[in-house]
């Protein structure tokens, strides 16, 4: 298993689209701070900009995971390297687990680049600042922690789509449609069906913005921990089952 994880990590480090995604996210983070500098620098602090940036990070996180799933997982079918991996003498379950672990790790790191750039650059330009409603440091750790947790959950969903579709284009298309349109669609469906609204409110998609609120109830904290973990486990297991039965061409 360690061998497989090491190999996947090596692949991720050498993955050109991953490097580009990291660079793009970093650039967006820097540009975001520089635009604030141009507009109004008198009334801002790193933390106030960080709070504003979290809304954008939600979309960025989802997009980055969709693109990475396509170029880190699906592309292995296209270039035939999945064949070498599958015939290496390890069970499909282990191969998939190693891949998802590294993919999740890569996605989590990617999702932290934008907020961390904001905080680091914002602190240099405007000072760290504080928040009236909650301790700034606590808020920072909490939101970053939950970002990682939700990124892990979204990663297993994207990984499942990637191994099922085995095609870069299809993976990007389907996962982006799912990740970006599930929220507006769910709001409409939720208005029609109360049971669906309840389901949506308690799944990772509905809960994603909850940790970004200044105040979280203990129920919210519980749900925001359990929902991503359960999603990770359930979609991870489904992914293993799908990959075990998949013909590799």
């Amino acid at each position: 298993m360690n061998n497989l994880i090491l190999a996947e990590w090596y692949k991720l480090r050498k993955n050109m689209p991953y490097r580009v995604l990291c660079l793009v996210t970093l650039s967006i983070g820097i540009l975001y701070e520089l635009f604030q500098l141009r507009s109004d620098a008198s009334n801002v602090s790193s933390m106030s900009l960080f709070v504003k940036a979290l809304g954008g990070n939600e979309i960025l996180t989802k997009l980055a995971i969709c693109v990475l799933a396509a170029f880190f997982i699906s592309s292995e079918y296209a270039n035939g390297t999945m064949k070498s991996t599958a015939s290496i003498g390890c069970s499909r379950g282990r191969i998939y687990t190693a891949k998802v672990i590294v993919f999740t790790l890569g996605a989590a790191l990617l999702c932290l680049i934008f907020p961390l750039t904001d905080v680091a650059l914002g602190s240099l330009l405007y000072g760290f600042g504080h928040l009236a409603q909650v301790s700034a440091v606590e808020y920072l750790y909490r939101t970053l922690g939950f970002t990682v947790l939700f990124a892990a959950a979204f990663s297993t969903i994207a990984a499942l789509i990637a191994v099922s579709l085995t095609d870069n284009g299809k993976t990007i298309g389907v996962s982006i449609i799912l990740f970006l349109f599930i929220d507006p669609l769910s709001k409409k469906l939720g208005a029609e069906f109360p049971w669906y609204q309840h389901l949506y409110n308690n799944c990772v998609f509905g809960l994603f913005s909850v940790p970004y609120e200044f105040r979280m109830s203990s129920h919210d904290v519980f749900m925001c921990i359990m929902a991503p973990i359960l999603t990770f486990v359930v979609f991870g297991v489904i992914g293993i089952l799908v990959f075990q039965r998949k013909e590799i061409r």
Partner: protein
Amino acid sequence: MTEYVLKTIQLSEHYKSRIVLDKVDLAVPKGSIYGFIGLNGAGKSTLMRIVTGLSFPTSGTIELFGKSSESEIIQARKRMGSTIESPGLFPNMTAYENMEVCRLQKGVPGKDCIPKTLAIVGLQDVGNKKTRNFSLGMKQRLAIAMALLGDPEFLILDEPTNGLDPMGVVEMRDLLRRLNRELGMTILISSHILSELNLLATHYGIIHRGRLVEQLTSTELEEKCQQYLHIKVDNPERASVAIEQQLHTNEFEVLPTGVIKLFKYVKEPGKVSSVLVASGLQIEAFMPMGEELESYFASRIGGVKHE
């Protein structure tokens, strides 16, 4: 008793209503170079894919290094190297980096094996060139180098000479022969260049429309692809008598066209022609001939009638 590295027992694979493999009983003896022959779509790659764990059979079992349970077969695959269909490479990585991924996956200790293995396939000087810029032949060589990492005991190569230039084909043949003779590596190789297999294989398996038509050793094949003298004379009856009485052999046959196939004296054509001329026969055609693997293969799959 012959030890087998790979055995398939009644192995079948169906895609919807199409039968791709039909109860195949293939046996690859340890230490052999097993040439797997078949037309495109005959089922060669499908069988290799099942052995390497890329596909699953509809029915039947495989035995790899004598192991037949699923978990044991997975473990046994660690003793195997393979390249199936097109070479699977990361296009944005160099040859060394592709090898490194493979080394890490196989858990081969130390990086020294990478330049050594690259040198074996003649890719020691490719430097930092990305594999997307490689020719098909270079990709093929790299795929073989990756299969060789970790010194496997059993090598499965699906059309490995595809895209290689003539010198590359010769080098590949020499390499495979060396691996087989010096390291005792068992090799299962499929190729549509039958003359190539003819120079390499110690065993053959002929597959047609999913059925294993025949398995034979190179010695058996040689016997079946017998050399003979092709003789055409003005009077085949008199010639037959002359051959029987003066050359003391009845190892010949007279075809309905009047052509005589003489299976003896292939290396003494002068002696035969002297006898025929001395018997007052007029020789119209006289040449040594022999059935090649191609024609034998064609006859086994029903392409050309085997006389």
